[in-house]
């Protein structure tokens, strides 16, 4: 045996070069997605500054006015500025996307991570998630609205409850897979405790596969808000939300076809943006 062993070349194929984790978002469809989402997010955050009018202010004489210098997206049937309502409506989605989804995801991951440690807890958690999963999302929305009445709070609860089992299941699968990997077993045999294994190996290595789902869930959340508001289960008037704006726009589509365009474009940008991000990350992971 010689030191030649040390210079043994690493095989070029088979071993994936580990690219920057977020590299997928710096080019191609990932970048397009990020830009689309970022535009909407910034617009929503800056709504109080950007919006020319108060979203609920009724402007005399401007009934279903077509787009103009004063009202870029026109006005609605009760004389409110649609641009201002869209900008403020985005904020509802920001809460839903960046608060409700992460909360649901975090709770789900916590369940998926901890429940396999105990056989009975695992069974109980799985059955609980089964029950949650037995409700299709919009049916869940109806159930929640029946109990809590319509409103942002209800939307948020629905999204948390819808995401929780998805992330719970995914995290559990991922955790069970990682826990059985040879490097985790080696650490266990050499005397590492459960907390060590969880913190050092299982958690970091299980979370990465969940990033794709996070992006998908965010796009679904925009959809859920829209559908709930469309059905009158969501945000209550006169507060604007993208879903209720689309509903109002459709109702007035004959008199004012421009009405629906603004909210429609914003919703599509958000959904599509998150979708592109999800696709880019999953394409990167497959490489």
């Amino acid at each position, binding site marked *: 045996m010689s030191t030649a062993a040390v210079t*043994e070349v*690493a*095989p070029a194929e088979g*071993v994936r070069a580990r690219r920057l984790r977020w590299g997928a978002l710096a080019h191609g469809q990932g970048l397009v997605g990020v830009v689309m989402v970022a535009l909407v997010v910034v617009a929503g955050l800056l709504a109080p500054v950007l919006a020319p009018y108060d979203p609920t202010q009724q402007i005399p004489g401007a009934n279903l006015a077509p787009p103009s210098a004063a009202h870029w997206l026109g006005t609605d049937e009760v004389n409110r500025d649609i641009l201002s309502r869209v900008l403020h409506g985005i904020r509802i989605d920001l809460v839903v996307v960046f608060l409700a989804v992460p909360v649901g995801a975090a709770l789900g991951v916590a369940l998926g991570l901890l429940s396999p440690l105990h056989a009975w807890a695992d069974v109980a958690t799985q059955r609980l998630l089964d029950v949650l999963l037995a409700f299709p999302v919009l049916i869940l929305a109806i159930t929640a609205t029946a109990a809590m009445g319509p409103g942002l709070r209800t939307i948020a609860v629905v999204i948390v409850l819808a995401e929780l089992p998805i992330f719970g299941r995914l995290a559990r699968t991922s955790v069970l897979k990682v826990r059985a990997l*040879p490097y985790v077993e080696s650490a266990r*045999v*050499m*005397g590492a*405790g459960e907390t060590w294994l969880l913190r050092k190996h299982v958690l970091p*290595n299980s979370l990465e596969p969940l990033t794709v789902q996070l992006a998908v869930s965010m796009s679904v959340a925009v959809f859920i808000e829209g559908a709930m508001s469309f059905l009158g289960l969501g945000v209550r008037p006169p507060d604007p939300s993208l879903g209720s704006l689309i509903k109002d726009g459709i109702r007035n589509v004959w008199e004012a076809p421009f009405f629906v365009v603004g909210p429609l474009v914003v919703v599509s940008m958000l959904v599509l943006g998150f979708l592109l991000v999800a696709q880019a990350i999953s394409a990167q992971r497959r490489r």
Partner: protein
Amino acid sequence: MTVPHLHRADQTAAPPLLRVRDLRIDFAHPRPAVEGIDVTVGRGEIVALVGESGSGKSMTARAVIGLLPRGAVATGSIELEGREVLGASEEDLRRLRGAGVAMVFQEPQTAPNPVRTVGWQLREALRAHGAVSRAEARERAVALLRQVEIPDPETRVDHYPHQLSGGQKQRVVLALALANEPSLLLADEPTTALDVTVQAEILALLGRLRDETGAGVLLITHNMGVVARLAQRVVVLREGRVVEEAPVRRLFAEPEHPYTRQLLGAVPRLPSGSEPPTLAPPPEAGASAAALRLDDVRVVYPARRGQAAFTAVDGVTFEVRRGEVVGLVGESGSGKTTLGRAAAGLLPAAAGTVHVGGADLATLSARALRGVRRGLALVPQDPAASLDPRFTVARSIAEPLDVHRVGDAASRAARVSELLDAVRLDPGLAQRRPHQLSGGQRQRVALARGLALDPTLLIADEPTSALDVSIQAEVLELFTRLQRELGFACLFVSHDLAVVHQVSDRVVVLREGLVVEQGPAERVFGAPEHDYTRRLVAAVPEPVPAEEAQARRVS
């Protein structure tokens, strides 16, 4: 096949069955996978294409059958019965595949379609080269299964692959390849995934089939024992080039190229029957000193969704004394891995006791268990997963020190470089991550991690089985040296008898969860007492050409 039109230059003799000239296969980036390979195979001839991973042997075979991966560009010439394969249209290639040249693949578990019956798949193979009626196809299918010596072919023809054993599946794959009477058979590591006893049967079958059909065989393998048993001529490849070509006897008797010599030297060998078994050192007294002791151990996998409980091992008793290496051998399904995991405390014993360093694993508190485990280490099998992909080499090696809070940052760093040195790794690798290392390097790191706390017992589960022979030889030598220097005890689990023979003081032979035989390595392999061990030893293909092996046995 039609008689090929003879080229002017070849008027003196019929062209060989397969003639590969100056084959070069390029991918978009690094160096070419294959750089100017020449190979010929005559009718009825078995030619072995030998090399380690990355040698280009499989790529060459895939080029012959026109199934190169996307993005590969092949230049040069591949003539099959005088007709050029490179550059042929997809439809011409399709007609060629299966009929002119057929391929036998490595992995019998996945090579057949899992949702179609054996008969359906044979019919599909026949149908690809001409219409056949259902009845005709079935008749042919049964005949083919009979030809590859599958018992009860009339019943088996209606079975799905998962209802067959691994060896039978490989026979089915052979039957598929033979369906359209190809003149050339490409066998890509046809027995690598099989147990030795099954491997011996399949190799014998391949030889008989060649005799019956007169087909030429291009045998792609890394296993010199397989080469010796089957091939007539050998072509040795390394990094895409032919290093040496010779008739099999000459190659084994007088290898010319240093790489061939290295390859042959690296093959672990069993003592041949003619050598008298050397007597093992007398067993040490004092069983209490055992590093690992298993008493009447049974391990049961509990019943799960629809599957009944399964007893993997039962009534196993043996011990590993301090400073001793015990090899645990058996074929797949023997329970050797299960037993290794039970010894490591990863699986509970359903009955019996497991003592590590005198402590019964089952009765220990979590805290005490962790203390016992300080003296215990595991070297896993799969180099791809033996290290956390997020950890640097240094962090992986230092993990046991971190877990047990040994020393401070400086002393841990010092220990890491000491260990890197011990396993002969460049200290510059310390900050690399696993994906930047080769398989051999990763297993060295795994070994270094295992040794970090000077364990009294190391459990190694097939630590070298995924490595190339020359790398395996290096890692095994390193292991032996370190074991001698540091004096740790080791339970060495492996399916490879020659590897176990090389590293072990004593051997435990498992079969279907039961201990068949145990004793000093030289005695068990040199003069096996149990019939099963004898069969196992006889099935190991020796790196000695078949005729010579026979001659030696006679003398």
